[in-house]
């Protein structure tokens, strides 16, 4: 059953070999990732290699996102965070930015047309970033989609748009300072754990941080994407341009995760224990933190309703 109807295709099609391999991976792997963060890099280089126009590279990249959503959904991975547009990309030519915004408009309108299916499949779509900088129509569509789907947890797509991790962390710190000013929290309540919990309120619906950070095109950088959320994730740098990313690459990535997950999870638990050693918890502090996080969630929900 297809996740979202895009490009007028009503049924998603796997070959028998893909279906067989997919079932083996879905039901055979003992530790499947639940959340993958992806930097979708390489659209322009893909277009250049195939003598396409740059805009065609970006369109193919946008189409690939929906394919990957379907593959992840079918493999039981229920959260995907993607880096669609960075605040740094504003340095590109106005022409290219306009092309990217046109593609965003097109995809948003296609998603709106499939809203019935989205409700049926209980898919949550979140747009994360500096939404005040978005063109008005895209911002309105984004808020509309987020309001319509905020309650779902079956499959979550976090699209990072006009986003950088540093911008996100700066906003978290500003919220913490406001919380401190309002006496919701004390200065001694602020620690690494509270910063991470605040981040989770804004960027993860399930509360589960990314298990895998994936970047395509062979570049070996994080490029200011989910720096805190992915600090203990498995980093995979795939040497394939995003529009050429296919299901076998995804299967390979999940197999790599399965191979190293035991060691990685041990190390993640060790890191959590190291971080917990420095934490001082008591009932009053726990209550203050709960009040603060509820206030933060309320702020986020009110921003959606604007």
């Amino acid at each position, binding site marked *: 059953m297809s996740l979202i109807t895009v490009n007028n295709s009503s049924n998603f099609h796997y070959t028998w070999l893909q279906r067989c391999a997919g079932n083996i991976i879905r*039901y055979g792997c003992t530790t499947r990732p639940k959340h993958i963060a992806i930097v979708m890099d390489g659209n322009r280089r893909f277009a250049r290699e195939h003598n396409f126009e740059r805009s065609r590279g970006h369109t193919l990249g946008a189409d690939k996102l929906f394919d990957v959503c379907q593959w992840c959904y079918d493999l039981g991975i229920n959260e995907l965070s993607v880096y669609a547009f960075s605040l740094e990309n*504003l340095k590109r030519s106005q022409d290219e930015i306009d092309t990217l915004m046109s593609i965003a408009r097109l995809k948003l309108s296609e998603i709106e047309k499939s809203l019935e299916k989205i409700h049926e499949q209980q898919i949550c779509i979140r747009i994360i970033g500096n939404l005040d900088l978005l063109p008005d129509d895209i911002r309105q569509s984004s808020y509309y989609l987020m309001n319509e789907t905020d309650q779902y947890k079956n499959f979550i797509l976090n699209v990072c748009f006009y986003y950088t991790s*540093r911008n996100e962390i700066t906003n978290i*710190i500003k919220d913490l300072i406001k919380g401190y000013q309002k006496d919701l929290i004390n200065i001694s309540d602020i620690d690494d754990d509270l910063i991470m919990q605040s981040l989770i309120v804004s960027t993860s619906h399930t509360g589960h941080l990314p298990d895998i950070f994936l970047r395509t095109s062979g570049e*070996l950088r994080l490029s200011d994407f989910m720096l805190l959320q992915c600090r*203990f994730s498995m*980093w995979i740098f795939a040497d394939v341009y995003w529009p050429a990313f296919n299901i076998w690459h995804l299967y390979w990535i999940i197999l790599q995760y399965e191979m190293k997950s035991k060691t990685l999870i041990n*190390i993640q638990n060790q890191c959590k224990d190291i*971080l917990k050693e420095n934490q001082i918890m008591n009932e009053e502090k726990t209550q203050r933190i709960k009040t603060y996080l509820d206030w933060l969630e309320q702020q986020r929900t009110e921003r959606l309703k604007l």
Partner: protein
Amino acid sequence: MKTISILYRFIIALVLWFLNITQWFHRSIIQFISRNRYTITVNIDVSRNDLWNINNDQMSKIQFNKPTEVLALIINERIPDTDLWKFFINSIVFFRKLNIQHLIIYDYEGYIKARETLIMNYVHEYDKKVQSSLPLPTIHFLSLIDCSQTLTKVTQTLCQQVKQNELNPDSIQIETIDRCYTKLSTIPEINLALIIGPIKSALGLHPWLTRLTEFIMIDSYKQIQTTNSYINIVQRYNLIEQRQGR
């Protein structure tokens, strides 16, 4: 359904066993090749047992082709004490010649940080032995606790400034945080990081400072025991082009 699930798990276990065997084989080949390279290319007056085996002639030909002042070694494996000193002295001696201003040695547990005094004693001994006049970079021995507390301290510092009316919260920008973070950590943004070990992740090294860092993955410290291997790393790094959003 249960039988099929067991069958699928068996197939996956078989595939992973095969992959692990081929990875072990691949690692053995790399180590074998590295050993051979050691015996072929190292100068005759540098013995295998000598702690310091950086070849000065090869060094004069290699430079970074872009501003690179901050370099991190992220150690994601346990290096035995017998190899630890040699590995770090080789690294410090090599990268010092490339005008690195800050060298970060990071492991999440902090077992290398616990040996900081001993490592630095060896480095000073080496400097005396070769009468080196090159300045040492600022060497930072870090662990997860150090890196995880910095953002907390930044937030607490800004809270205090806001409380004392020295700062308006609405005026806080990325640059404000950046200045405060760099001041508290005493480290600028990291240009290049070598992740050494089987786990490909920075495991908590100053996330704020790694937004544009180039990461080079090395399966084991055993793969960088010769001048050539360090030179290969620099050449690999020199090939990379940073687009910075463009």
